[in-house]
């Protein structure tokens, strides 16, 4: 054999071996030493990943027979990847979900009924409201990581710079909100904005709930009315024209960059931004400004308060996991032990387990104290629990993004956009 043919033969052999090795390999399973290997997935930034890895290390130290492999991506790509993995039968054993996704996956049979592992995974210390967010069709599919709420994040530095007073969060209305935003717009330097474009599904939840409606009805249909949507978009367009929110193209670019560090608030370029309360730590760290959390406008003028307490994320177990008992052990460790709580702190919301919450209290940083204080004052003032969207609603944020872009770029008037949105959501959940 000449040198060249020998090289070719080696290459072919390598190809065959590659093909053969691709056929082997199954999800999870026992590693060589006979230890159980679990896979655990979540979304988030690097700080969260580092903290989570520490929790995993602590868990492994306590459970010598189990090793845990963590996988994470940013929020936008997390669910695309998860869908692919679930379809391929290679989904992680412990899956972090949120919003409408637990129901989506639960109803499609991808999640384990947690009552089957009730002996390992206890839920008696977990707040009932949050626990309800993991229960669908009378099956407990998930355990909340913590409690969370939509808040208005404000940057007092920018308010000071503009010489505008912070609002009174107990009484302010949407009119006050618009007035303050426009006031800020006129006084802030170029490149800084009064607020990030406020349109997001959670805000439609709040805005419609304040009017006695809801984005979805309990029987799984669209609950928000044309009028409410038109009023909402009329307001946001008005803010856009006043220069209170960034130009449409900048807003649309920002929707493709969900990490808190990339938002206007995280970069110190917005005075106000509606966001989840547990983002405060990341936003403060990124902006370096003494950000605060206040309650959203319109809570005292509407027919009822629109804000609610939400399970920030939910841990679920893959229905096809080969090691449901061990996976349950991991979830139990994550939500029910002070060891894990003291590492995660409030990154995934204020711990829903009252014992863990008490155990971490002395350790909380200034940001985390802000967050707990916010949730504590909100608790008695919050509205009724949120109606979680039906199957198919997990796609609605994408629909809203598209229709909102149409509105901001002036391609659809609010009235047409409202009808379009309701129609598209109806199709998605139909």
């Amino acid at each position: 054999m000449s040198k060249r043919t020998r090289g070719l033969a080696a290459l072919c052999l390598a190809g065959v071996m590659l093909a053969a090795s691709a056929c082997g390999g199954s999800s999870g399973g026992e590693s060589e030493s006979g230890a159980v290997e679990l896979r655990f997935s979540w979304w988030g930034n690097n700080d969260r990943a580092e903290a989570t890895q520490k929790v995993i290390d602590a868990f492994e130290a306590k459970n010598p027979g189990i090793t845990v492999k963590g996988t994470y991506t940013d929020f936008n790509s997390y669910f695309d990847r998860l869908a692919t993995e679930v379809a391929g039968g290679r989904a992680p054993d412990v899956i972090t979900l949120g919003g409408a996704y637990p129901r989506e996956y639960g109803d499609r049979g991808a999640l384990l009924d947690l009552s089957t592992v009730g002996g390992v995974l206890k839920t008696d210390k977990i707040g009932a409201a949050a626990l309800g967010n993991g229960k669908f069709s009378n099956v407990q599919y998930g355990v909340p990581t913590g409690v969370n709420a939509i808040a208005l994040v404000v940057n007092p530095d920018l308010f000071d710079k503009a010489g505008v007073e912070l609002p009174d969060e107990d009484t302010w209305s949407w009119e006050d909100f618009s007035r303050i935003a426009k006031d800020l717009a006129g006084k802030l330097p170029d490149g800084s904005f009064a607020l990030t474009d406020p349109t997001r599904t959670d805000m439609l939840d709040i805005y419609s709930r304040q009017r006695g409606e809801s984005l979805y009805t309990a029987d799984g249909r669209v609950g928000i009315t044309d009028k409410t949507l038109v009023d909402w978009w009329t307001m946001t367009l008005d803010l856009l024209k006043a220069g209170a929110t960034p130009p449409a193209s900048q807003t649309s670019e920002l929707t493709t960059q969900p990490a808190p560090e990339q938002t206007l608030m995280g970069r110190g370029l917005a005075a106000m931004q509606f966001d989840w309360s547990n983002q405060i730590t990341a936003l403060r760290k990124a902006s370096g400004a003494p950000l605060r959390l206040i309650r959203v406008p319109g809570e005292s003028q509407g027919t009822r308060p629109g804000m609610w307490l939400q399970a920030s994320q939910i841990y679920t177990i893959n229905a096809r996991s080969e090691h449901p008992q061990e996976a349950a052990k991991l979830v139990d460790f994550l939500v029910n032990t002070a060891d894990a709580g003291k590492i995660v702190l409030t990154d995934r919301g204020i711990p829903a387990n009252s014992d863990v919450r008490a155990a971490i209290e002395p350790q909380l940083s200034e940001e985390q104290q802000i967050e707990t204080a916010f949730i504590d004052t909100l608790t008695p003032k919050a509205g009724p629990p949120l109606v979680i969207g039906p199957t198919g609603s997990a796609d609605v944020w994408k629909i809203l993004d598209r229709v909102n872009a149409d509105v901001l770029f002036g391609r659809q008037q609010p009235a047409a956009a409202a009808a379009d949105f309701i129609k598209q959501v109806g199709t998605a959940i139909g």
Partner: protein
Amino acid sequence: MSKRLDTAGATVAPPPPRPVSPTEDPPRRRRFLRPGGPPQDRIGYLFLTPWFIGMAAFTIGPILGSLYLSFTEYTLLKPPEWLGLDNYREMLEDPRLHKSLLVTFLYVFVSVPIQLILALGLALLLNRGVRGLAFYRSVYYLPSLLAGSVSIAILWRQIFGQEGLVNQLLAFFGVEGVSWVAHPDFALGTLVLLNAWTFGAPMVIFLAGLRQIPVSYYEAAQVDGAGTVNRFFHITLPMLTPIIFFNVVLQMIGAFQSFTQAFVISGGRGGPSDATLLYTLYLYERGFGSFDMGYASAMAWILLALIAALTGLNFLFAKRWVFYGN
């Protein structure tokens, strides 16, 4: 005619005075395909088996699987349910699908001509005997290797974003730019530009084609008093038509399947307002975003039919303008 078309697929069309008589070719080819041919052929096939196995297992198998799935409702998590032609019927009434077709056609029919004109222009320039040709050829070819990558798409976002290079340049002239990648009027334009930037691959093919044109033609034309323009339109262009045709077919097929750039630049969503919703992106979104794998499979087959039909049209029209020299 059909025999002539066969040669169109070859990268280099043989020059008019064929060095080898065409009758010598077919018998040799037939002998190679005959089963039980000479031992070196069998060894050849043996060496190809890993590829054949891979082809069957990872390409043909899934392709047939997707044909079946296209007639079903398949949500990934439950076994597929037979629907008949429902997916195809739904496609007729799906406004986002129609929008994605429009976006894709616009993308293909704008970016491919730009890309090929650039490629031809540069090939002509380089063919004039530049010193360090190998270097330039490599430099211009580089984008073709890189442009499909995620990192270039991210770079594109940085260049054409709100605070990108383009806007910084504009600000220098006192113009306030928009986020080009996120504006419905311009976002597709940035993708077209990115695709046009990959002119290197067709350029190399053009260069090879230009080398095949006998110098004697030009000399003869020059003697007859033909200027540069005349020589280009009456010798270079006609002689190059097989190469142009080959590049048009290849680049069109490639452009129809573009995905990565649009996916990365729009954050995976074809936004804003579906302005960059390429067909493949919508297919992906339906399949992996909305769990409509059946519908996505049907879309894939329509795309295949579409590309096949357009390529067929290309070949049909080729009779009118492609010149094979004999």
